[in-house]
Structures are given as structure tokens and as C-alpha cells.
């Protein structure tokens, strides 16, 4: 059944009561300029052709939609397909948006790119796109994230990016975005802010989503070809929400397709110990947009925690807030421990090591599958787990012993 549910922002970038453009006046005219440039680029067949060519030959699209037979059979319920965004160049879906925005920056004559990164996947994809186009690249990253995603810091630097550590606040993604915005306020004439999630002031949530729509478009076409029907449930993890919105978008009008976003449940659902904005958050404004925000009684942004640096953020993308309020998508959370267990399960049944972010979506898929035989599930595997090797090692010490013959585990 196809309905008339749509999810487009109004002319000023509002998704229902969310989104908008809440930034200092210095950035308002540059955002208007960006919006115009993006509109013109979207309508330009030459721009689209160049982007498609890069996505195909540089990034590796289309990505496989893989039938996870062993996982499905082990669980004995729903038939599970995995959208392999982890197989993209640089290791996650982030490259879709980075190539699009880097092309746009070049078109706008901006020679300097800044970005924020949490897990480092967006930073790595940005560094890669900048190297490809010969653009200067500065990536802001919380010092806590630099510590736990050290491998990605090195990868960015190897590709010529400057990684600037941010020591403010929780020293994670929120603080990296604040610092990137301060840079942008100062250098807006020469610099494009390559924001990596479906967050921020208009047109970012719209633009980032559009660059990731290819995930859902490919999934829809492929599942129809393979199964002759649409999936019953689609799962994606939600930090800012870019991989989820890119996956969900092709299915928003198909009301029988359940869209399930998974937030980071962290250590517990006590404020400060998680990043589940729909469980404990309230509408607020941060980093340019209105959406669900984890905050204290006085309107100060709360601290967050997740084992996954990419989901460790206080505000959810505004389009997700709108989908949530209208009941078109449902959102749930997955704890650190559940995500780690899901990662191990996927590694052992399918030989795929997921990023910790994606492992949150895998957990919910695994949790629901046994009770839904005959149903068709798709989980978006937004990134691969190489970057999380150190965290997996810390959490599975039994596999990491110096003993050359560890006991069976």
C-alpha cells in the first residue's frame, strides 16, 4: 500500500515543527548561498553525472544487498538482508555525502573544507574526497574520540588532512561540531563546512539526506528484483541520522514498511549515560536546528555516552523527529553491551565485522527476527568494524590473550 505520507521540508527548511535555521547572523547569507548552489547543482545533469560516476567508480556503488542466510537460519524467523554500505570506499556510507558536498564546494569556488567527526568515518571520507579534489581539509574531532578511534585519526592524516583535537565539554562529537561552526563563522568566505550528518541548519539536513538517498533507492530496486516485494521492516542506527534517513527515504510512502531507527542506549537510560534522544530528550535547538535534544532542566545540552563514537551525540536529525512524531518511523535504543554482542554474533555467523554504530541496528534486527517468520527484514550495515578493533579487543579480552592457544570461547 502506497500512501501520501511524504517528508519534505517547507521553503525555509522546517520538517513540521523541527529543523529551520538557528545560527548567528554571520552564517545566514552563506547558508542562503549554499542553498541556492545546492538547488542549482541538483538540477544540473552534468553535476549529477559526475557524482554518479564517482559513486560508481571511486566509491564502489551500487553496494550489495546480501541475503544473510546463516544469520536468518540461526534465528529461525525473518529473512534478513544486509545492505552492505560497509563495503564502500573508506568503510562507511559517509562517502556518498562527502563526494556530493566536495563537488558542490568545488562548484562554489571554496578551496578549504572543514568537517567534524565522531567515529572518524565522516572525517576519513572527507579527507579522501579532499585529497581527490586537491582541497585543503581540516577535521575537528573530540579528544575522547581521537583516543578511541585512533586508527581513523591516522588514516585522515595519511590522506593529508589536519585533525584538530577538541578538548571542550565531553570531548566528543557535540564539541567537535561546535568548534567546526566557530571555524566556519570565522572563515566562511573561503571555506565550505562539509557537515557529515542530517543535522544543522537548512539546507544541511535536506542536502545530506539527498546525497544518501541512493542507499534506499538501491535497496528498494534490488529487493523488488530479488523478492518481488518490499521488505516488512527496515533497520538503521541513528546518531545524527544520515544513514537511516538515506535508507528510509525511498520507503516513506510505503506505509506497510516499518522503519525502525536505533539510538545508542549506552550504559543506562539515565541522563548522561546514553544518546537516546527520544528516551529522555525534549525539543530544543542546537547547532542550527530544532529537534529532540538531550538537555537538563535549564536548557543546557546534556553529556552523552555511547560505546560507539558515531552515535554519541545529543540531538537527532530534524527529519527523524518529524517521522517520530507522526508515527511514520519508530525508534528504539540498544545498549553498549547489546551492540557488542550483536557485533560478535554477526562476525561469527556471517563473517562480517560491523562498525559499532551499525551493530546497534544489527541488535534490533536479531532481537525481532525470531518472532517474525516469513517476514522480510533489511538492516543497513552503515560501516565496517576495522576502526573499532581496539574497542572490540578491550571488550573481548578472551580473544586477545598472549596465549597462542586460547581456550575455546
Amino acid at each position, binding site marked *: 500500500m502506497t500512501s501520501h505520507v511524504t517528508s519534505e521540508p517547507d521553503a525555509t527548511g522546517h520538517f513540521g515543527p523541527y529543523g529551520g535555521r*538557528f545560527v548567528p547572523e554571520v552564517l545566514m*547569507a552563506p547558508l542562503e548561498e549554499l542553498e541556492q548552489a545546492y538547488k542549482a547543482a541538483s538540477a544540473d545533469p552534468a553535476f549529477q553525472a559526475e557524482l554518479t560516476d564517482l559513486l560508481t567508480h571511486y566509491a564502489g556503488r551500487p553496494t550489495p544487498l546480501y541475503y544473510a542466510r546463516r544469520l536468518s537460519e540461526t534465528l529461525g524467523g525473518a529473512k534478513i538482508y544486509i545492505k552492505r554500505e560497509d563495503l564502500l570506499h573508506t568503510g562507511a556510507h559517509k562517502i556518498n555525502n562527502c563526494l556530493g558536498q566536495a563537488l558542490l564546494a568545488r562548484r562554489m569556488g571554496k578551496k578549504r573544507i572543514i568537517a567534524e567527526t565522531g567515529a572518524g568515518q565522516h572525517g576519513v571520507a572527507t579527507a579522501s574526497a579532499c585529497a581527490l579534489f586537491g582541497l585543503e581539509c581540516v577535521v575537528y574531532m573530540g579528544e575522547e574520540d581521537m583516543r578511541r578511534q585512533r586508527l581513523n585519526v591516522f588514516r585522515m592524516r595519511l590522506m593529508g588532512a589536519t585533525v584538530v583535537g577538541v578538548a571542550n565539554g565531553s570531548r566528543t562529537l*557535540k564539541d567537535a561540531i561546535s568548534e567546526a561552526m566557530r571555524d566556519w563563522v570565522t572563515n566562511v568566505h573561503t571555506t565550505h563546512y562539509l557537515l557529515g550528518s542530517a543535522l544543522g541548519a537548512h539546507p544541511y539536513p535536506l542536502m545530506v539526506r539527498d546525497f544518501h538517498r541512493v542507499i534506499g533507492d538501491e535497496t528498494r530496486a534490488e529487493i523488488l528484483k530479488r523478492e518481488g516485494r518490499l521488505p516488512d521492516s527496515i533497520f538503521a542506527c541513528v546518531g545524527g541520522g544520515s544513514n537511516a534517513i538515506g535508507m528510509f527515504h525511498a520507503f516513506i510512502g510505503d506505509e506497510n514498511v516499518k522503519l525502525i531507527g536505533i539510538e545508542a542506549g549506552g550504559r543506562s537510560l539515565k541522563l548522561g549515560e546514553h544518546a537516546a534522544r527520544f528516551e529522555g530528550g525534549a525539543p530544543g535547538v542546537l547547532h542550527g536546528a530544532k529537534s529532540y535534544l538531550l538537555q537538563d532542566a535549564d*536548557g543546557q545540552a546534556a553529556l552523552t555516552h555511547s560505546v560507539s563514537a558515531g552515535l554519541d551525540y545529543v540531538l537527532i536529525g530534524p527529519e527523524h523527529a518529524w517521522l517520530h512524531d507522526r508515527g511514520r518511523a519508530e525508534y528504539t535504543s540498544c545498549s553498549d553491551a547489546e551492540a557488542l554482542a550483536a557485533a560478535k554474533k554477526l562476525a561469527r555467523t556471517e563473517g562480517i565485522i560491523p562498525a559499532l554504530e551499525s551493530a546497534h541496528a544489527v541488535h534490533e534486527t536479531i532481537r525481532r527476527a525470531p518472532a517474525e517468520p516469513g517476514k522480510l527484514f533489511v538492516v543497513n550495515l552503515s560501516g565496517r568494524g576495522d576502526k573499532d578493533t581496539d574497542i572490540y579487543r578491550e571488550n573481548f579480552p578472551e580473544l586477545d590473550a598472549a596465549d597462542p592457544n586460547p581456550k575455546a570461547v
Partner: protein
Amino acid sequence: MQPTRIQKLFESVRKENRSALIAYVTAGDPSPERTPEIVAALERGGVDLIELGVPFSDPIADGPVIQRAAARALKAGTTVPKVLDMARAIRKTSEMPILLFTYLNPVLRYGFDKLARDAKAAGIDGCLLTDVSVEEAEPYVAAMRAAELDTVFLAAPTSTERRLNLVAQYSTGFVYLVSRTGVTGEQVALSDSLAPLIDKMRAATKLPLAAGFGISTPDQAGAVAKMADGVVVGSAIVRQIEKDPSGLESLARSLAERMKK
């Protein structure tokens, strides 16, 4: 509507052929108890208007000095109700105009109507929200108008003519000109984007124009006083509070002496 203290101030400095000296302080830095005496010292030194900053966890328009002040103030337990208490305490002994200066979220959380009512009752004269664009301002401006509080908006060197007109239309009391593209903080030299911005804004409005961001030394303040109707000094004052609040009165005096046209 009666003229507000802010409007009366600009009327009187115009007659005195000088600029108004405006000082920014982060309320609650170093502690909520200290703020009223800090403001009093600034007033004794010749400050005409105080911008009372409500600290926010993520001050994206601020440089390191004011970021540190916000962190100290939050650590000391500063909240919106406590800032209102500070305003009441200042009002006991002073008629100096007070402009509440902050980011949207703490105000959104408190509630526009409630804040407008409570701020008015506490003796506050107006409000400036750094991250509220004129496009998003409607409900906030309506609440402030109903309580007869001024709404000051920012104009920037990047603002187009269309935007400058909108900023003028939504502002009352004065318009705050951001002297350069950047965050708050002291600069070696005054930005050359200020003079053209003042000219463009004069063409758009008869409201008084105050300039801030990057103005810290008496020489810089003196140069801006020749062009604008108000001069805002923020980071230099906040740095003095960080270093030694006993020097505030003389710092203010060195700036106030340069307000002549």
C-alpha cells in the same frame, strides 16, 4: 509603549555627543554572588549598558575567553532563574539598562512568555539571542513585545541588503553590528569591514547602532565610538574578571574616556 531604559540611554548619549559604552559579562562568572558587584564596578567606571550573558553549554559564536567564562558560570550553578535574581540585585542600586544576552535553548526551555514576564519584572530591558535569525524570530519577538522588552538582533559583514532590512525591522532599542566575521575575542587590529557595515545599516534604519566583536583596547573603542552609537567590549572585560576583578573599574574608565565623538 514607554521608551525603555535602552532607548532613553541612546537618546541621552546622542545629546552628549558621545557613544554609549556597553560591557558584556557572563552572568555567574566566577559565581552568581559576585555578578552584581562586578556590574557595579563597571558602572562606576563609566559603563552605560550591561549585556548580561546567560551561560550556555555550547556557545558556538564565542571565542575561548567567553567559552571559559560560560564553563565557570555553569560550574558555579548559574541558571536562568539565578540570572534573573542577579538582575534584581543590580536593579536595587542601579538604573543602568540591562540586556539579556544568550543563545536560544535556555530561553526556549524556560518559555518565551514566562521569560519575557519574569525578565521585565526583574528589571531587564531587552534581549539578544545570538542564534535566532530573523526568520525564526516571530514567536520570541511577539513575547518580548507583549512585555515591552527590546529585541536586539545582530547584523554582520556577510549580511545582504535584504537581510539588513529584516534585522532593522525586527530590532528595537539598537542594532548590534558584528564588526567582523568571526567569534567573540580580542583582535590586534580593528576590522575594516565595520565602516562599510555601518554605512549600509544607516541606510536601512534610524535605530542606534552599536558595534562589537573584536573591540578590546581603548584605542579601538575610541575609533569605533567615532562611527557607531555604542561600543561593545566583551572578551577584554571577561578576561579581566578571570585575571583580577579589582581592575574592572579602571579598565572601564580607560574605555569610557574614549567615547567622545
